[in-house]
């Protein structure tokens, strides 16, 4: 409790809640629609946006937003319009995004401070401004899902049938990819671009073992996210380990335990 007197700890706790909302809601779709690696592609490609931030001298989180939205749309177009296989589209975007990021950082004058915190996350260094950005993105995510929940559920279940009942399947798929892109931005500070898919999949994968009601799944995934990130934060603080990696290891351990017990 005495830890709470430090501002950076309080910020880290607020950040835990904000990232858990994104991973609870969007992570659920990622898991049930089985688009983990598309999400991985978008998250890795967002490094391009981080690099652009360094190059332009602005907060990389801010430039990451349009960049990951763009990569989400690109992955959708490569996959749906150019008739390229999904895994190929992911492979292209994943590496092109990272390469752009590296080139941008190369071109930036001087040394790139904090680069590691974008790659591997550092939830202990979230300033107030970024908390606000995360909050706004969360609100966008929640309200969009609130509006399009029926459509998202249907296209996650069966895209062809969704078209048959009059849902604009492709547009909604693109919208869902954009929401994933926004979630990626929310999650970058916690675990870094490399490990974002952990937060987008593990909480929902754990919760899916307990319920098959999608509403409950949102809630349970969010709660799992909060508990695991806070626990990871605490463990990393006590043992002086990297916070992002510790959070992912806590999530992995919980997933393994739940899977063993439930089987």
């Amino acid at each position, binding site marked *: 409790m005495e830890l709470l007197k430090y501002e950076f700890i309080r910020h880290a706790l607020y950040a835990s809640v904000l990232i858990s909302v994104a991973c609870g809601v969007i992570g659920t779709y990622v898991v049930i629609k089985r688009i983990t690696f598309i999400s991985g592609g978008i998250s890795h490609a967002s490094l391009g946006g981080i690099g652009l931030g360094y190059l332009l001298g602005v907060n990389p989180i801010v430039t990451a937003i349009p960049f990951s939205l763009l990569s989400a749309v690109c992955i959708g177009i490569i996959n749906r319009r150019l008739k390229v296989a999904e895994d190929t589209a992911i492979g292209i975007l994943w590496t092109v995004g990272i390469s752009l990021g590296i080139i941008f950082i190369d071109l930036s004058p001087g040394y790139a401070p904090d680069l590691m915190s974008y790659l591997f996350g550092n939830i202990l260094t979230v300033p107030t401004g970024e908390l606000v950005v995360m909050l706004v993105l969360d609100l966008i995510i929640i309200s969009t899902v609130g509006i399009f929940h029926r459509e998202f559920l249907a296209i996650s279940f069966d895209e062809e049938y969704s078209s048959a*009942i009059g849902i604009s399947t492709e547009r909604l798929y693109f919208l869902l990819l954009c929401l994933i892109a926004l979630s990626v931005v929310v999650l970058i500070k916690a675990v870094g671009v490399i490990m974002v898919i952990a937060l987008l999949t593990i909480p929902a994968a754990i919760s899916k073992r307990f319920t098959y009601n999608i509403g409950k799944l949102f809630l349970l995934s969010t709660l799992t996210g909060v508990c695991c990130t806070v626990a990871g934060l605490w463990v990393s603080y006590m043992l002086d380990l990297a916070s992002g990696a510790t959070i992912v290891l806590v999530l992995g351990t919980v997933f393994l335990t739940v899977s063993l017990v439930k089987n």
Partner: protein
Amino acid sequence: MTNTEIVSLKGVTVIIGESAVLEDVDLSIDQNDFAAVIGPNGSGKTTLLKVMLGLLTPGVGDVKVFGTKAAKGRKHIGYLPQHSSFDPGFPISVFDTVLMSRYRGFMTRISARDRTAVEWALEKVGMVELANRQIGSLSDGQMQRVFLARAIVREPKLLLLDEPTASIDPEMQNSFYELLEELKSKMAIVMVSHDVGVVFAHVNKVVCLNRKLFYHGPAEGAADVIEEMYHCPIDLIAHGIPHRVLHKHKQR
């Protein structure tokens, strides 16, 4: 109910990849038709249904469904696909799977009437008791019944069924045809099937398809065409020896 035309296909050609799956097909379905679509594997039966649904737009030809474009007309259509590709672990109950089909457009809410319709549809296919089960926990036959409920819950004016009896047991097949007899007064039915013998007892129209339309009319006149199309006598098909049919077909 007046017998107005609800589906009209004129000169429809669908090309997938390099080859024509449907070629110059003219077809008309009326409001009180119960039609069977018959044809060998790969003859374009599923494609024909997808054209009516607007899931496939033909390269050549004109499609009118309820007097308008197929993509608009499909709000009056209930559809049972041949295969549904979905994750068996998908977190949804039987009830919600059927409810999903009551979708009427952007920003529409689920009403009490939607729920009543779901209960009615599940009752019709005998799946009320399993309404709260997770969809993937059902057997193939039970799942097929749920997907039939999903098609009829839309209270459609046209029901498209793609090999609906493929995975249900004989007892269920009887009640399935009883259900169709009951529904046909309320909606037109177009059904893709291989059970030529059983189907002929129920339908008023037969559509024989093998890339081109071979026959389109009353069941009585269809026998010769079917023999020609499958290249073997009708009684072989009618008595359900599908491998014979396939065998002959390959040797063509």
